[in-house]
């Protein structure tokens, strides 16, 4: 007799799967006018913005380039830049 096959998965293991390459545009956090409102952190559907102390950045291993952070940043401190392919 052998154990049933592993059918559960480990918390957060999706980080093994990099979605960064899906991106066609990339958010560039300018760290310029940032008011530390954390909106970019909150609105990212891919949970990939982090930072603090007026410095935020996207984890480009995962950022899909949706542009929401840039669109919602109240002070336009994020630019979307086309990825060169």
């Amino acid at each position, binding site marked *: 007799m052998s154990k049933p096959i592993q059918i559960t998965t480990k918390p957060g293991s999706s980080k093994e799967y990099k*979605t960064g*390459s*899906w*991106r*066609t545009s990339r958010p560039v956090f300018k760290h310029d006018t940032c008011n530390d409102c954390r909106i970019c952190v909150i609105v990212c559907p891919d949970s990939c913005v982090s930072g603090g102390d007026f410095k935020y950045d996207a984890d480009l291993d995962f950022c*899909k380039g949706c542009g929401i952070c840039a669109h919602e940043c109240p002070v336009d401190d994020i630019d979307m830049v086309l*990825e060169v*392919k």
Partner: protein
Amino acid sequence: MKEIRLHGRGGQGVVTAAEIIGQAAFADGMFALAFPSFGSERMGAPVQSFVKISDKPIRARNQIHEPDYLIVQDSTLISMIDVTSGLKSGGLVIVDSERKPEELGLKIDGRVLTIPATKIAMEIIGRPVQNTTLLGYFAAVTGLISFDGVKKAIEERFPGLIGQKNVQAAQKAFELAGEVVNV
């Protein structure tokens, strides 16, 4: 029978491209079977599709593991997955890229061609829809399907202005092609 595998990303029309190849072959009086790889991924994720072309009815339903031709709609995939896996010796790879084939770093026993399909599409269609453009090029360099076939298939699929623009883009790519590469 010739087997073609297409690589791209969800949303780039890689399944449509396979179907258009099939329809072009059909228009040319050949038999074809086109089908997707049926992934569960969403827009942006890597996807594949397949086409088989033959002068006899096509019966085998298996996926294409040893393609004669590869069409890569998104060059960023090259670093991510082994797009050329199983490519037949002497096979042909067509990549949408502004770079030269050598620069892609593909190590295969076959030929690599690049065409700036997205760029052409942006110019002519106004949107980054590289699939039809690539097919014009594919028709030209392989001679496997006729440009007329491609044209007809595109027009059927996209009636009206948008179809015409797609045909134009395909035509442009067709004209850019050099000699026919037999596989």
